[in-house]
């Protein structure tokens, strides 16, 4: 008792800090991961997957169909979930994504939407999340530029 009386302030500060830290650590509805580190796969392009690679994936795959024209996973025997992009954080869907053991694949006809959803979900701590793309690397420019060697610009 005497000890408690002497150390009550120390204990109080410790408990409060521990509580705040624990609350932060176990809260799922806030961003708490290092943004740069989580985003790394997107710079390395290891978060992209083609249809070909998808069919060779083994194990339980969760396919998130984000639009009207996304592919259906039935032909690969995968589990497909159709989600409107703006309701992806609704607990009904999010819980499923969080509890998914195998890879989660984002499928959408628009890469821009997949990219945004990927970044949001990844920053929430979901790993093993891939974007289904038509190409191995859509970030390669296929257009050729024809320089005009006659024009001289005024700089």
């Amino acid at each position, binding site marked *: 008792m005497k000890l408690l009386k*002497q*150390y009550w*302030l*120390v204990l109080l*500060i*410790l408990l409060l*800090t*521990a509580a705040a*830290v624990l609350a932060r*650590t176990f809260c799922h*509805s*806030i*961003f*708490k*991961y*290092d*943004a*740069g*580190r989580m*985003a*790394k796969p*997107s*710079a*390395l392009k290891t978060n*992209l997957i083609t249809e070909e690679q998808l069919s060779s994936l083994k194990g339980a795959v969760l396919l998130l169909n984000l639009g009207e024209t996304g592919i259906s996973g039935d032909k690969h025997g995968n589990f497909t979930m159709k989600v409107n*992009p*703006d309701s*992806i*954080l609704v607990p009904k869907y999010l819980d499923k994504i969080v509890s998914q053991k195998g890879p989660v694949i984002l499928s959408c006809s*628009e*890469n*821009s*939407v997949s*990219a*945004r*959803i*990927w*970044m*949001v979900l990844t*920053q*929430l701590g979901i790993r093993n999340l891939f*974007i289904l793309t038509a190409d191995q690397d*859509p*970030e*390669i*420019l*296929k*257009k050729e*530029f024809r*320089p*005009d*060697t006659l*024009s*001289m*610009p005024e*700089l």
Partner: protein
Amino acid sequence: MRNKITILLLSLSLILALLPLTANRSFTEKPGKLLSDVLDEDVTFSVDQVARFIVTEDSTIRIIDLRKPEEFRKLCLPGSVNLPYAEFIGTDPDMYLNNRNIKTIFYSNSDLDANYALVYARGLGYELTYAMEGGMTEWMNTVMESKFSGERISARENAVFEIRTRAGKLFTELNSLPESEKVRFMESKKFSARKLDGGCE
């Protein structure tokens, strides 16, 4: 007193040692708000809008090229600044985005990198950030290959066409420059990373 403070500090640092702590930062926006923000239509600009900014030399707009330096040297939008995507997420974006009066437009070759960057920047609280729809691919398709088609043209279409032609001309002029001259020109537009205040200097 010594014991109390020593014990307190020791246990606090023990907590710290157990945390997966890095000196870096996580997103500050609330997930729900961030999601609805970035799914909104007004986070993107079409290539035509960007062409207009370029032609009018809009000073409230900054265009960031997220592609690799060698791609940038070969081909870039007039007035854009190069900041490779990997570097963008590897450093503190405050150095590039801290200006609260300037809108930043990201572009890459397609849609992916620009939209990652858009969410990344907005998640960290930089609201005036946008992506260019379709990236460089779309620019080449729409602006550079724009042609008159059909017989009659409305005033609006005519205005769009006019902008495209002028932007296309600027683009061609810049990118037709010999490599050495282009590098020199780009060096002058490099990002000067803001230094933090502090110390006794």
